[in-house]
């Protein structure tokens, strides 16, 4: 806060009332699991095919791009910051991938990955070094990458020419070499890998732990000797990579490079991370739990089609279910928690 105003008052407000073991933290995680289970039961009751193998495959495919983005933005949310540029980075990546298959072949994936690194790095440097609020920094880079997507694609939605389908047919593979995958699509395995890598990085490396620490108390993290700017830049870079991977998923899944494909996913990814228990004010949250938030939103969207929610009511039901899920997830026990 701008003025410390008699710390005695502030300090007395911050006393942690009573015993708050880490278990109570976990209860809120199981709540989002409980709400998913409740919805699964309900939707299956209404239409048994909901849990049929094809729809499980659909659910897991739909989860993949949002999961890649949500894990990225979850790291940024841990800092207490926000990343609004994921949508455009994903769109730009989808367009690039479609174009680069021709000249680079399999290396196109690497090139798009590097683009994700660069885009995330730019956000991190603008925020950490120039001290521009992350809301504005990422909102501005969103419009920059949106323009880039238009320019690269020449204003046309790009089709992946059949000649290059070879690079993307693995998406529909039903087995990983000898191992039959059943309903699990390859995209989901990659998304899971991203989640696990991001979780390990956040929980088991110095920079990763710094992200959580500085989100909880940046002043203390600085004095403890943690690398604040480095952690911020890496968090935004990983978020950029997550967005690029989501862009690759869109391109590979839709066999197209559409410059506006990722536009709507900024807020969905942030809502998913929040539903997964990541606090928007930073310092609280668990990467592995983000899949619960993403799963919940995907189950809602998919379920509404399976049980034929009337077209006019879909947006209303979606909003109400997100509100209910967040209500059950919010931490109402700590009286002194300031919720902005």
């Amino acid at each position: 806060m701008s003025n410390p105003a008699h710390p005695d008052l502030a300090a007395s407000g911050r006393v942690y009332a009573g015993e708050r073991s880490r278990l109570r933290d976990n209860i809120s995680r199981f709540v989002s699991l409980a709400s998913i289970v409740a919805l699964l039961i309900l939707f299956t009751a209404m239409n048994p095919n909901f849990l049929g193998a094809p729809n499980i495959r659909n659910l897991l495919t739909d989860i993949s791009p949002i999961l890649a983005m949500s894990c990225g933005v979850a790291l940024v949310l841990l800092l207490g910051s926000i990343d609004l540029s994921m949508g455009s980075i994903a769109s730009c990546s989808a367009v690039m991938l479609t174009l680069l298959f021709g000249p680079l072949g399999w290396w196109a994936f690497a090139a798009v990955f590097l683009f994700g690194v660069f885009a995330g790095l730019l956000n991190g440097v603008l925020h950490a070094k120039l001290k521009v609020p992350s809301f504005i920094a990422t909102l501005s880079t969103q419009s920059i990458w949106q323009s880039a997507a238009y320019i690269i694609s020449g204003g046309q939605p790009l089709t992946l020419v059949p000649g290059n389908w070879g690079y993307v047919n693995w998406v529909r593979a039903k087995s990983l070499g000898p191992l039959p995958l059943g309903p699990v699509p390859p995209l989901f395995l990659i998304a899971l890998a991203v989640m696990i890598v991001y979780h390990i990085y956040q929980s088991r490396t110095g920079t990763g732990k710094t992200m959580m620490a500085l989100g909880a108390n940046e002043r203390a993290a600085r004095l403890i000797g943690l690398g604040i700017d480095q952690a911020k830049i890496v968090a935004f870079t990983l978020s950029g990579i997550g967005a690029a991977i989501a862009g690759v998923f869109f391109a590979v899944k839709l066999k197209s490079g559409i410059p506006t494909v990722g536009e709507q996913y900024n807020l969905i990814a942030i809502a998913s991370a929040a539903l997964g228990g990541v606090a928007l004010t930073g310092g609280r949250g668990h990467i592995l739990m983000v899949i619960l938030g993403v799963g919940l939103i995907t189950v809602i969207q998919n379920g509404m089609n399976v049980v034929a929610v009337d077209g006019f009511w879909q947006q209303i039901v979606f909003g109400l279910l997100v509100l209910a899920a967040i209500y059950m997830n919010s931490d109402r026990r700590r009286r002194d928690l300031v919720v902005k």
Partner: protein
Amino acid sequence: METHSLLFSASKMAKRYPGTTALNAVELEVRPGEIVGLVGENGAGKSTLLKLIMGIEQPTEGAMAMRGEAYAPRTPIEANGMGVGMVFQEQSLIQNLTVGQNVFFGLEASYVRCGFLDKRRMYEDTRKILGEIGIDYIRPDKKVSNLDFATRQMVEIAKVFSVVTRRNAGGNLILLDEPTSVLNRSEVDNLFDNMRRMAAGGNSVIFVSHRLDEVLDVSDRIYVFKDGRNAALLDRKDANEAILYEKMVGKTVSGEYYKEDRQAVPGDEVLLEARNLGRRGFFGGVNLKLRRGEVVGVCGSIGSGKEDLCAVVCGDESYTAGELVVKGRVERFASPRQALKAGVLSIPKERREEGIIAEAPIYENIAMSNFRAFRRFGCVSARLERENARRRVDELSIRTPGINQSVGFLSGGNAQKVVFARILSSDADVLVLNHPTRGVDVGAKEEIYSLIRDITASGKGMILLGDTLDECIGLASRIIVMKDGLVTREFDAPAGAKPEQLEIVKYMV
């Protein structure tokens, strides 16, 4: 001005925090129209008593009375209602509101007509209130953020005065906690005139300050506090600085308490040297050498610049003059992280705000300053962290249900030990301790002192800002005294030939 009935009285006041006793059986009486001075070392319980009177915190024991009736406020607003107002050390004005809005914050009811605030009338009344303490040159419509520190302090005093005298002009109690630290001479004189005018109007003032000359100048009676107890009550006419020092300081605690016998003889290798170090506006001309195994104590009152010196050494602030040499290399730290790389690490003063990550578990907090030491195949291994944590918890006898416990839940003393465990787990060899035993129970204090001895014995150097003068003398082998940003005196304090507190205090205050 002797009137028999007391305006305010507090008897057998006690305040115990888990593990520490801040106040113990304290008596205080204030007659109407009287200015009572309150002096004592840091941590003597002065601020705690004011907080109890203001209703910010509730006493563990004891009773208070205001104008003869029982008085137990639960919030500052209740206290204001009963005619008790306080000016805080750190200002509580809202930066973005104007002076008038601040003075009448929360009390605008009488100026509101059908929802709209009659600002003109409010500002007129503000000008009158400011006039009452002689600062009506301040424009009521000016934003507080555009005022300098001293003016803000005067506005805060005017506000408290207006709140307190709202119901009845006389018979109120105004508490001033270190109001003069940012004022210059003319402003201090103006403040004293106002205090005297308030007293003349039948109100009473409790004036807390570390500047004994000021207290002597304005108070009718002076209470001296020591370690949360009444140490002395002196009338103005039979009090002078020497007596006050002597009462404040009381008997020097035996050397054994500070483990004086284990005070290491400093090695000759100079770990850190400050050559004419200074930071514009905060301190200047500091020369000090820190050798291996040596503890250099820095003494001084609030605003003497000692805290800013610590901030510069540990890389939290930059310096604008002189040189800081660490292990022979001139360093200019951009952040505490760079300082840590050069082997300099600090224990901050505000433990909860600056020393620990409250939500993180103990084992993570302990490892936070030195992740590299717990790395296995590129990752920080939780097992190594936990092992180290278990070892440190036993070593420092930290009382905790388990090492997974969030540090936010530990008592003050145990949390401080976690910070020490973090320092020990890092390979820093120059430690900057900023009030390491502040708000820690007596038992934990002793453990920390022997811990400090172990650390110096292992060859690390320490710059220590003692919680009390006594602590500084007891632990340090060299003492530097600072006042208003400048070094006023240096003392050698080898084991067995410790300087007297009296001598040092002369240069401090």
